[in-house]
C-alpha cells in the first residue's frame, strides 16, 4: 500500500456544463434535482439520444491575442475560466509563485477533434479549408496549449488523455509535481466537447441510451454524452487552511479489455484502496461517493461491487443523469460536484434512477439531502481499463 501524502488545498474551483455556467448553477440544479439533458440537436446527422449541451458556446468570442486557438473545445475552456473568479485566482497564483512555478495539467479525450472533423467535411480539393489551416488545434494538446497561452502559466504543461479517467488523473500528476517541490501550484481540470466522433463512436459500440441515461437503474440502457469544462487550483495547505482538500488519489489498470471493465472490478478496487491509503482514511470514514455510474449495463454492475466496501451510512450517487457523461472532462466535473457537496453539505441525488439495482440500492441517494460531508470519494474509469479514484475532504478535518 502507498504511503500517506500531504493533503493539498483547493483554493479555487468551478464547472460549466449542461447545468449552467459556474458553481451557483450547479449547486441549484443539484439541490432541486433538475437535470440538464435534452434531445440531441447537435450531431451532423440524426441520432436518437439525449445530450448534455452547454448553452452559449456558440456566442463565445476569444480575445484577439488567443483567437488563433478558436474552436468549440477552447471556447468552452474559455467560458469555464470566466466563472467563479478563476482567472483572478490563477493570476494571483502566478504573481505570487512565479509563472513557471505553476503547472498546468489538463485532461481531455476529445480535445478539439470537432475542428478536425469540420475540416474533413469542408475539404478544399483534398486540403483543409483556409480557416482551419491551424496545425496547433488539430492535436490532442490543443486544450492545454490554449489554456497556457490564455492564463500566462509557463510551468510544466501536460495533457492527460486516458479516455474517461483523463481529468481525474490530473489531480494525481499535479500532486506529485508539488510533492517533489518542482512547482508550488497547479491548475488542473478537464474540457471535452460534443462532436460527431463521440456521438457516433459510442453509438457504434451500442453504448448510447436512446432516451436518457439512468445510472444504477435496473432498466438502464446506456450513456448520454455531455460536454463540460471544470477546473481546480491546487496549492499547499498553508496557502488556504480552510479550503477543501485533495486528500488522496489512486490509479490502476484493469489488464482486461479495451472497452469493457474487469468483471470483478479488480482495477477499480485497487485504485480505490490506493486512494484511501494515500489519504490515510478507512472506507468507513467516507460520507459520500460520486460514482462513475455511466449507466451502461456493465459499468454499473461492476462498480456496484465496490459499494460493500463502505458502511450503509455512506451515500453514493452518479451525477451523470444531470450532466451526461462528459468523458475526458468527467473526472474534473465530478470532482467539482464532490467539492460542492462537501462545502455546502448536500448529497447530490442519483438523478434518472427510479428502480435501483438491488446490489446498489442500500447506498444510492435518490433524493438530494442536506448532510455534513467531511470525506468524499470520486470514481473515474476509462477505456483501456484505466482507473482513477480521488479522495477529497473538508478543510478542518485534518
Amino acid at each position, binding site marked *: 500500500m*502507498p504511503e500517506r501524502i500531504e493533503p493539498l488545498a483547493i483554493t479555487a474551483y468551478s464547472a460549466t456544463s449542461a447545468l449552467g455556467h459556474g458553481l451557483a448553477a450547479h449547486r441549484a440544479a443539484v439541490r432541486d434535482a433538475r437535470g440538464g439533458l435534452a434531445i440531441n440537436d447537435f*450531431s*451532423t*446527422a440524426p441520432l436518437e439520444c439525449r445530450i448534455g449541451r452547454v448553452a452559449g458556446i456558440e456566442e463565445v468570442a476569444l480575445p484577439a491575442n488567443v483567437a488563433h486557438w478558436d474552436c468549440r473545445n477552447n471556447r468552452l475552456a474559455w467560458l469555464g475560466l470566466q466563472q467563479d473568479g478563476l482567472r483572478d485566482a490563477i493570476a494571483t497564483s502566478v504573481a505570487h509563485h512565479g*509563472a*513557471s512555478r505553476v503547472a498546468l495539467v489538463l485532461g481531455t*479525450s476529445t480535445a478539439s*477533434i470537432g475542428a*478536425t*472533423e469540420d*475540416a*474533413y*467535411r469542408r*475539404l478544399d480539393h*483534398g*486540403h483543409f479549408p483556409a480557416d482551419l*489551416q491551424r*496545425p496547433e488545434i*488539430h*492535436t*490532442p*494538446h490543443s486544450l*492545454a496549449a490554449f489554456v497556457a*497561452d490564455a492564463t500566462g502559466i*509557463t*510551468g*510544466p*504543461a*501536460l*495533457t*492527460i*488523455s*486516458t479516455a474517461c479517467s483523463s481529468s481525474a*488523473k490530473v489531480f494525481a*500528476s499535479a500532486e*506529485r509535481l508539488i*510533492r*517533489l517541490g*518542482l512547482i508550488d501550484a497547479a491548475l488542473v481540470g478537464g474540457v471535452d466537447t460534443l462532436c*460527431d*466522433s463521440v456521438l*457516433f*463512436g459510442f*453509438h*457504434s*459500440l451500442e453504448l448510447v441510451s436512446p432516451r436518457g441515461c439512468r445510472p444504477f437503474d435496473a432498466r438502464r440502457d446506456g450513456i448520454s454524452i455531455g460536454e463540460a469544462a471544470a477546473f481546480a487550483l491546487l496549492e499547499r495547505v498553508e496557502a488556504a487552511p480552510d479550503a477543501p482538500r485533495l486528500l488522496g488519489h489512486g*490509479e*490502476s*489498470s484493469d*489488464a482486461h*479489455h*479495451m*472497452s469493457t471493465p474487469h468483471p470483478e472490478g479488480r*482495477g477499480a478496487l*485497487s485504485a480505490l484502496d490506493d486512494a484511501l491509503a494515500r489519504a490515510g482514511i478507512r472506507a468507513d470514514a467516507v460520507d459520500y461517493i460520486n460514482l462513475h455510474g455511466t449507466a451502461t449495463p456493465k459499468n454499473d454492475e461492476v462498480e456496484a461491487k465496490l459499494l460493500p466496501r463502505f458502511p450503509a451510512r455512506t451515500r453514493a450517487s452518479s451525477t451523470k443523469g444531470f450532466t451526461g457523461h462528459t468523458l475526458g472532462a468527467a473526472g474534473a466535473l465530478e470532482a467539482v460536484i464532490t467539492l460542492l457537496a462537501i462545502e455546502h453539505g448536500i448529497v447530490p441525488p442519483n438523478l434518472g434512477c427510479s428502480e435501483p439495482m438491488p446490489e446498489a440500492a442500500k447506498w444510492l441517494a435518490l433524493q438530494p439531502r442536506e448532510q455534513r460531508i467531511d470525506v468524499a470519494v470520486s470514481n473515474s474509469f*476509462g*477505456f*483501456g*481499463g*484505466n482507473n482513477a479514484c480521488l479522495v477529497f475532504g473538508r478543510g478542518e478535518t485534518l
Partner: protein
Amino acid sequence: MIAPLRVIGIGAWAPGAPDWQHLRGILRGEAAPDDDAPARPAGAVLPAAERRRAPDGVRLAADVAAQATAMAGIDPANLPCVFASTHGEVGITDYVCETLARAPLELSPTRFHNSVLNAPAGYWTIATGCTAASSAVTAHHRSFASGLLEAAVFACAEGKPVLFASCDVASSGPLVEMTRTTLAFGVALVLAPGASAGATMGLALSDAMDERFADGGLALPGVTGDNPANAHALALLQRFAAETTSRLRLPLSSGLSLDMEITP
C-alpha cells in the same frame, strides 16, 4: 531538481532500425539503416487476436516497451507506465474523420475505441497483465520532454521503476499537412529511482532555453521525419549511445526546459 534515475532499459524502433542495438549502431556511425528491416512494427508481445486489431501506434509502442522491459529484466505486470505521443493514432483519426464526413453511421466500433490516445497503454497493460497505473500524455512538440518528466516524477514520488515510451506513427490523408509526421519512430526507457552503477540520468527544470531544439533536434534523414518530439527523443538516445557523460536541454513548456545529465 529531481533525484537521479537509473536507466535500466532502452527500446527503440525506427525505419531501418527495428531495435535499440541497431539504432545505437547507426548513432555511433558503426552501422547503416537496414533496408530489409520490417516496414511495420511487429507488436510481437500482443496476443494474436489483439495484434490483428491493433493499429500501428499500438504495435510500435508494444515493441519498444517490450525491448526496454526485457533489457531491464523487470516483469511489466507491476510496472507503472507512461505513454507519450504528439498526435496519437493518426491513421485512425484520418479514418474516423473521413467516415464521419461521408457516412457517420458506418463508423467501426473497434476503430473508434482504438482512436483513444491511451490505446497503446490499454493494449500494453492487457498484453502484459499490468495492473499498475498507466497513463497517456501529450504536449504537442514538447511531448517527449513532458512525458519523460511525468514518468520521472512518478518514479521519484512513488519510489518505483516506471516504463516511459514515446511513439508517433506516420499520418495519412489530409491530416498530414497539419501533423507533418511522415515516419514512425518510438523510444522506451525504464527509469528506476536511485543512482548506482550503469546508465543514469539527472533531471532538473531550467528557465534557460537551448534554441537548437526549439523546433526539432537531431535530424537523422529517413529516421525522424519532421516530428520535433521524435527528434528530441533521438537527441537523448544519441547521448546514451555515446561513451561519455553529456548534457541535454530540451524545451518543456513556454517558460521551462528539461535539463538532463546523461551517463551512458
